[in-house]
């Protein structure tokens, strides 16, 4: 079969095209997919460009304080999205550190999330926020929690014919603070280690906490029990160290050209501590 290229105007039309062939692929920004095609690593028989589907570009504040972000929102747009404040700021900071400006002008939230690169910036941010991925197909829609969405290296929970329509961020308390710490070899590279932290506190006592780590294994690393254990307790160095320890133990990093697994385990708790320090600063001093 000859490869074909489509530019549907509606989500329904896109979903039909995606259902037409088991290897049909959505094309979002193309920053990853076209790079793979250029390298001979992908040859999708049916390519469905999502660029004309207006509803995929929408940002919507939800009545409960949550936020629904369309899959085709650009990294650049997210990086300057005013509604990404408080706890959501972790996603804004992450978006501002994805790649370099020209790539941020192309790449999208949905594309980067679907690609599920564990060293990329959105997976840990979404995991820390407890985001839900809204999947759509001709069969209907379903919502998948971030920690069930990212499964393995470059693998996620989407079924054939299914695509990301939007991502919903659940409400966080008004006083929550989100910070994103990224260590990379050079500007715009994938993370060696990244820390996504969402923290709400009341007079030094943790009330809400979300934390996930990028670059340290096949998917965003979390330590739910250790995180839960901090709730209701004062933030102190020992508690942060315990959380760092738990995350380092949960991590499953590999040696690669960016760094060794040992180094990632070593630096993870150190960066976590820094993230806590920054999250506790008054807003103006945070950057």
């Amino acid at each position, binding site marked *: 079969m000859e490869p074909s290229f489509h530019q549907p105007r509606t989500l329904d039309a896109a979903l039909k095209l995606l259902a037409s062939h088991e290897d049909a692929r959505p094309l979002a920004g193309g920053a990853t997919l076209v790079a793979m095609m250029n*390298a001979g690593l992908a040859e999708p028989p049916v390519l469905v460009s999502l660029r004309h589907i207006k509803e995929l570009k929408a940002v919507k504040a939800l009545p409960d304080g949550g936020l629904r972000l369309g899959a085709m929102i650009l990294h650049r747009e997210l990086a300057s999205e005013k509604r990404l404040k408080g706890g959501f700021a972790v996603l804004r900071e992450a978006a501002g550190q994805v790649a*370099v400006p020209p790539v941020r002008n192309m790449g999208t939230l949905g594309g980067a999330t679907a690609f599920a690169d564990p060293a990329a910036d959105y997976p840990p941010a979404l995991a820390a926020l407890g985001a839900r991925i809204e999947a759509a197909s001709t069969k209907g829609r379903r919502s998948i929690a971030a920690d069930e969405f990212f499964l393995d290296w470059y693998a996620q929970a989407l079924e054939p014919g299914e695509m990301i329509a939007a991502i919903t961020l659940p409400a966080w308390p008004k006083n929550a603070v989100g910070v994103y710490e990224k*260590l990379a*070899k*050079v*500007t*715009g*590279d*994938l993370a*060696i280690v990244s820390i996504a932290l969402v923290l709400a506190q009341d007079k030094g006592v943790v009330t809400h906490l979300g934390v996930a780590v990028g670059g340290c294994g096949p998917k965003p690393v979390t330590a739910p029990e250790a995180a839960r254990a901090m709730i209701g307790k004062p933030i102190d160095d020992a508690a942060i160290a315990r959380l760092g320890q738990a995350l380092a133990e949960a991590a499953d990093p590999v040696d690669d*050209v*960016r*760094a*060794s697994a040992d*180094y990632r385990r*070593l*630096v993870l708790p*150190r*960066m976590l*501590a*820094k993230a806590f320090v920054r999250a506790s600063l008054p807003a103006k001093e945070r950057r």
Partner: protein
Amino acid sequence: MTVHTPIVGTSVPKRDAKEKVLGQARYIADMTRPGMLHGAILQSHVAHARILGYDVSEALKVPGVHAVLTGDDVGDFRMGAFVKDETAIAKEKILYLGEPVAAVAADDEETARYAARLIKVAVEELPGVFSPEEALAPGAPILHEKLESYFKVFPAVCGGNLLSQTEITEGDVAKAWAECDIIVEGEYETQPQYHLSMEPCGALSEIDVDGRITLWSANQSVFRVQANVCESLGLPMSRLRCLTPKVGAGFGNKMEPHIQPICVALTMKTGRPVKMILNRAEDMETVRARHPFKVKMKTGAKKDGTLVAREVEALLDGGAFGDDSPGVLGYSLLMARGPYRIPNARCFGRVAYTNKMRFGAFRGFGNPQVSLAGETQIDQIADKLGIDHFEIRLKNALKDGERWFGGQLLKSNGLIECIEKARAASESVKHLKSQAAKGKLRGRGIAVGGHISGLLATGAIVRLLEDGTAVLNTGAVDIGQGSDTVLTQLCAETLRLPLDKVALASPDTDGSPYNWGTTASRVTYTTGRAVVAASKDVERQIKDHAAAMLNTTPDQLELRDGGFVGIKGSNTQLPYLAVSARAHWGVGGPIVGTNTLVFDTPTIDPKHGAATGLPFGQIGVFSFCAMVCEVDIDETTGKVEPVRAWYAADVGKAINPRLVEVQMEGGFVQGMGFALTEELVWEGPRLVNPNLRDYKAPTMLDAPYDIHTQIVEHPEPDGPCGAKGVGEISLVPVPAAIANAIADAAGIHLTQLPFTPERVLNAMLAKKS
């Protein structure tokens, strides 16, 4: 009464800047020829094997394919800068993973690449060696069984997998250790660095009805291209003409051949123009990279800081072919004593063949690697003796009239002034460790170096045109650094012509005088000498004509701005037009000035030093540099961030100061990449990061903006207007300066490049505990 406005010493804009900003400059990938085919290579999947045969039938069946090339199509002809060990395409044996083993010419690139993948190569796999230690171990599998029979341009000490071995000595090291009050020792390791010219390598060749071939390519020397292609294909040089479009930079990678021999072979096979442009992965996997070094160094000094002895042992990975390896080895050993007076020194090294891509020339040519060891040891000695880092260098720095390691006399040496200038500039900005941002450690490091500019032959032809304007032809390839501009400035200055009245011929092996290449920081110095001499030859002829026309003698005449020749002290003058008209139409014939030369000052003076296995006898004149670098270290992660750099470089005379400064700035950032983030990583036989996603050079945000440069001018007596080179010296001290800055900030002495966050943090933590 005659006013002279100098052209030399002024920062005129580069000649090609305008076409480049407009996007109109043409590089090899931008060229097409009528009837042109596109070529593509098949790369080997094994690192070491005997080739048993090829099945090209499937590839030939693909519509649009015109020819397939394999090792069977080329004779047993071998090329190589020092040891002629390399065939145009793998023949009989495969020596590294990724090596081109076959090639296809087809109507378009996509077809060529598709068809290349259909070629089957039957091989008998052989065990490989992937480090010099493995390669030199007894019983190791041998890469070049016929090494002994290969032609070598120098008496190489070689055998088995040993490609070359060099030793240089002065004084008596063994005895000297006893005189030392303090001795420091260390082992250092440096990684392979990829040149990363933004333009990948490529070539385009065509053939005429008489079988004469024209070849354009991304290169640093049309003459080296000509020699290599002809040697590897068994062609007389008269059958191949080499030209160059604009070149998207070369840092050593485009000096010796890449795809040109294969491209020409495909043109010969098809009778059609063929273009081959390497993609980035192929460029990384098949061209060349900076040699990984292992260096053992020991340096001894007296209590007062006087350096007494140094001993060096280096082991280099050469990769599968000789390429420039013997040169890099020999040169690095010659540089390993540093720009210091160390009366007793012994520098010994070996380079071995391994089953990896060849390693070769890269800006610095082995000097940055040994300077890392040497310059960090100087700091360590100073620290142990409680001497200031600048002072110990000032105390031991070679001065004018002293000799480089091996005995060559230094006729121009601004090292001391460089150190003083870099010191003053850096000290004008207070070094406050407390200035570092929270969570960062700040430190400063100094490093100095010397580097040659020179080597081999060059020439220039200056023709005076009928109207009295001139055209200069040197055969030197401008790879972006601006030699076209600098050489034109020298010609215009000598002939007193405005810059726009001096045209420049593009390098052409048919019409240009021989030029060994744009390498070894040599064009300004060597080619500049030839340009000035050829221009003076024209001056002499102009004056001879004018003397006859004005009834005077040549010694009474002077050249004047705007292209006039006049009688000294008088208003009488002639435009060159009148002189050239006489020469063209009346007497004597058109005026052509020529000069050729070869650098001929011996490197080793047997009264001072001795060398064995050194592949060059006459290397060049010396430029010098001192730099101070300031870095911050992130205490959380160990990541090193250069904040500022202060440079001072002695370039003899800056013909175009701004072009000199850009060399320093660019050298810093490339050196910083070498020091901190860049590394080609092999896992066994496989290069695991042959792409720019995984090979990381500094971006604009990683490089410091604050690079402060100063030019020092100690004129080289025979340099053009006193000039010598700057291309490489700018990179040489960078890794060492960064190492010393890290030591200053965190008290750790790193010996292995690159200084990744991991290595830095581990060392900081080890020091704490």
